[in-house]
């Protein structure tokens, strides 16, 4: 199962008009496209229409989450609505299952949020603003866990799609001082509690492509500045009998 993924394309009125050219042929490389957030520069409906110009005519399924840039204009509901009208599946605490030529793919998606990682994570203590920050992370992680839980056993491959990182591994290269604004270990905890074959995220432009959750699930940072190409393709081979790539699913019967 070939999965094309990219994040942080930041489309705006001033974007290079050639940026979309590689997408015309993505169906030759992949069975599905995952967009890991920050599709737009500032999250305006006009920028959402640019995203649609680039991805609305892609002949394979396109699944996306929004990123922080897509929220900046505080019109994320409109952006989501427009993208969905164009056939792009936008996930926020949702899950989708798609039958592809190579098997059934399940994707659970959420924007994610900051909060930091073990040893330097934010705690809901003190001012209400600090509690609100941490509680938002907790809520987002709960949404991810719930979405993953809704994926059925019929999925051959399961992917968690998010904008923020679930691990400091893929933040390597970013200044450690800003790690709490780039991801949260609570996202990894949600992933590790279920059966996932791959985590895809963006957001960390100066980060590292490859990492893993504490539970060993592969994590890939597909922010365009990191991968240095229009998209990265992951080839996950569904195991016989519906086992995920990691083979950790326990079959009943």
């Amino acid at each position: 199962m070939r999965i094309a993924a990219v994040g942080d394309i930041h489309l705006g009125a001033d974007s290079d008009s050639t940026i979309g050219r590689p997408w015309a042929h993505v169906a030759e490389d992949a069975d599905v496209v995952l967009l890991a957030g920050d599709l737009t520069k500032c999250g305006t409906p006009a920028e959402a229409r640019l995203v649609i110009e680039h991805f609305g005519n892609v002949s394979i399924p396109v699944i996306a989450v929004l990123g922080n840039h897509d929220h900046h204009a505080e019109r994320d509901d409109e952006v989501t609505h427009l993208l969905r009208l164009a056939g792009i599946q936008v996930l926020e605490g949702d899950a989708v299952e798609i039958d592809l030529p190579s098997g059934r793919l399940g994707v659970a998606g959420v924007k994610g949020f900051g909060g930091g990682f073990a040893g330097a994570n934010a705690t809901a203590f003190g001012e209400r603003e600090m509690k609100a920050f941490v509680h938002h992370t907790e809520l987002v992680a709960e949404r991810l866990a719930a979405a993953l839980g809704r994926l059925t056993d019929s999925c051959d491959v399961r992917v968690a799609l998010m904008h923020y990182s679930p691990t400091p591994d893929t933040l390597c290269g970013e200044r450690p001082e800003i790690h709490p604004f780039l991801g949260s270990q609570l996202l990894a905890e949600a992933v590790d509690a279920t059966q996932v074959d791959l985590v895809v995220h963006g957001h960390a432009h100066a980060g590292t492509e490859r990492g893993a959750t504490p539970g060993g699930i592969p994590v890939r940072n597909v922010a365009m500045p990191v991968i240095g190409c229009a998209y990265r393709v992951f080839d996950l081979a569904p195991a016989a009998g519906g086992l995920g790539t990691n083979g950790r699913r326990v079959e009943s019967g």
Partner: protein
Amino acid sequence: MTSPTPPVPLAHVLLHVRDTLATDGRVGELGLEVVAEGDDVVVRGVIATAARQAEIVSVVAEVLAAHGWSCPVRDLTRTPAVASPTTDPEQL
């Protein structure tokens, strides 16, 4: 008679520069590094497009001027290469 207002320390101004680079629609890039090096203000990081990159120096200069500073601005940002569609698939 009042004495002239002392200039805002450059270290504080650089915080505002960084915020403006994120929120000003001409650039709109969150997370750029803005530091003072010698007499210069230097901007580093990755910015999505060449058009936005071209605005960095003028945006920085505007914020500096608004706080009473005038110093050379060096833009050392880079734009991501997106010409190639992809590389070989990663087998997982």
